[in-house]
């Protein structure tokens, strides 16, 4: 390390109270920013879980649908039309709805029921217990063994239960990539059984799932579906639509953005104020260094180094604290929705760099203003 940076580092870290205050400010800000954004990302990921879990390339739906849970049943001709479009390899119906399961103690538990196409079982989950063909047995259901599984009193293969006054039997335990947002267990069955067991409106198809022959067929399929008054969205478009709904139409996105901005302001205030005080306390020494022969750019580089060093250490501690918190939370609450991505880490780093930049700018201005002659004059 260059000597001048070593001096800068010693000046900084040997002032333990200010260094601690700076670190606490930045760590706290990073912790809050990462937590807020991770929570929101986790919520968005969970809200899109059915799209990931079922894995269809194209989802046909009513244009008013803005998240998986609020599906609007479509008439049968949507499925027929979809199958007739050139470029469609296959199209299958999907039932997606809610029901009530009566537990042994007489209480009810809400569940999500997904009805898979009887012919293909397209979108079926990976089984960890049981055989997939048993789904065609009488009253058969698969249960997803996720964080919500315990809410159904941990059923095993053969466990019987009551669903909307119908008998149900667990024939398999399944695993999915991600569990849903609303904290209810998920059951899979066939499309026909789902629409039979669960009270429905006149139409029964929640979604039509399409597999195109090739990617180039997708625009044509979307055009044709639009002609009959429905939307055909690729899984990426559907995920974006759901994300947009939660971000812009629920107030959630705005709140998270506000909290993130407040965290940034808190971090900036604490670190900016503390760094400014640190510079003021050492101002005469910087002036003396100027008199001795330090150049302006050397003093600037010292201040930038101090500011960025503190910010990066604070960033590391903040990210570490957030990760630890989320890990512990997930151990205690398996359904805890928080997911840290590289984008979040990058954004938090950018914010920290801005905090460091603004803090050091204030310090640099003061140091450049001090004249060696002021040192002589006292």
């Amino acid at each position, binding site marked *: 390390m260059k000597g001048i940076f070593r*001096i800068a580092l010693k000046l900084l870290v040997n002032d333990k109270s200010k260094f601690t205050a700076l670190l606490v400010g930045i760590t706290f800000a990073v912790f809050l920013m990462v937590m807020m954004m991770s929570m929101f990302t986790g919520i968005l990921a969970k809200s899109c879980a059915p799209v990931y879990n079922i894995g269809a390339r194209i989802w046909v739906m009513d244009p008013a649908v803005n998240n998986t849970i609020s599906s609007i049943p479509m008439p049968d001709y949507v499925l027929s039309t979809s199958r007739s479009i050139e470029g469609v390899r296959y199209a299958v119906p999907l039932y997606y709805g809610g029901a009530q399961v009566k537990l042994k103690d007489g209480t009810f538990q809400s569940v999500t029921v997904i009805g898979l196409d009887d012919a293909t079982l397209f979108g079926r989950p990976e089984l960890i217990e049981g055989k997939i063909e048993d789904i065609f047995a009488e009253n058969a259901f698969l249960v997803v063994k996720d964080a919500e599984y315990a809410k159904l009193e941990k059923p095993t293969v053969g466990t019987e239960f009551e669903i909307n006054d119908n008998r149900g039997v667990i024939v398999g335990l399944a695993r999915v990539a991600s569990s849903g947002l609303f904290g209810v267990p998920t059951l899979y069955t066939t499309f026909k059984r789902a629409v039979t067991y669960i009270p429905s409106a006149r139409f029964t198809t929640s979604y039509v799932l399409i597999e195109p022959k090739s990617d180039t067929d997708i625009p044509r399929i979307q055009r044709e579906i639009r002609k009959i008054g429905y939307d055909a969205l690729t899984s990426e478009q559907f995920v974006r639509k759901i994300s947009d709904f939660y971000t812009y139409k629920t107030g959630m996105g705005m709140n998270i953005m506000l909290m993130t901005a407040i965290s940034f302001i808190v971090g900036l205030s604490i670190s900016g104020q503390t760094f400014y005080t640190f510079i003021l306390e050492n101002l005469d020494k910087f002036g003396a260094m100027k008199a*001795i*022969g330090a150049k302006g750019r050397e003093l600037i580089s010292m201040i930038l180094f101090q500011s960025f060093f503190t910010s990066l250490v604070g960033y590391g501690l903040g990210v570490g604290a957030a990760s630890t918190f989320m890990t512990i939370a997930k151990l205690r609450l398996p359904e805890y929705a928080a997911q840290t991505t590289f984008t979040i880490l990058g954004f938090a780093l950018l914010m920290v760099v801005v905090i460091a930049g603004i803090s050091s700018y204030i310090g640099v201005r003061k140091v450049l203003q001090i004249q060696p002659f002021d*040192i*002589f004059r006292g």
Partner: protein
Amino acid sequence: MGEALIRASNMAKWFGEGEARTMAVRDASFEVQHGEMLYIVGPSGSGKTTLLSMVSGILKPNGGKVTVEGRDLWAMGDDELADLRLKRIGFVFQDYHLFPRLTTLENVAIPLILKKVEWNEAMRRSMEYLEVVGLKDRANLQPVKLSGGEQQRVAIARAIVGKPDILIFDEPTASLDGDTGRKIVEFVKTRILDENRCIIIVTHDSRIYEYADTILKMEDGKITGVEKNHLHEK
């Protein structure tokens, strides 16, 4: 006598403009030779510190010229001037201006660090100079744990560690008791001053006048007299 180490001619400095203009220094000329200890004395507000600042490349004069071994100080650019101060001028400030969060040794090493001397080498050389000022055993203490006289000696070590040929002392005895002040100046005179170096001291402490080779008396921004101490003539 060879070429003067420092030659100041017709120095002038004022602050403010128009009716608010205050003349701090006017028409000040003098020379400092190698091996000479020159005092600038006078009452507060007489322009001593302003003159010292102009001579040491810190405050740009409004008029006049300062040369160091023939080189015009104020014709240099900022970086060149900073380099000259770093390499040829050592400062001992009135309040020392030691970094409280650095050790004594690290404080002494600052000019070497600025000269980009490698850290361990800078520390080694700084230790030698702490030994010169008798503070080797205080090397790892922070300045706040030292007495005023010891801090003054640390500042002296910092000023001489880069082997400058011009040493500038601003009121070196102002924060010290009479006995310590005399000891410090005596130490500077006998141990620090040599034939390659000059020392300029701004003071109004008459108790240390006896150590001066030359005394410039200032009043109202003008040099009102020059006294040579013939006892010190070599």
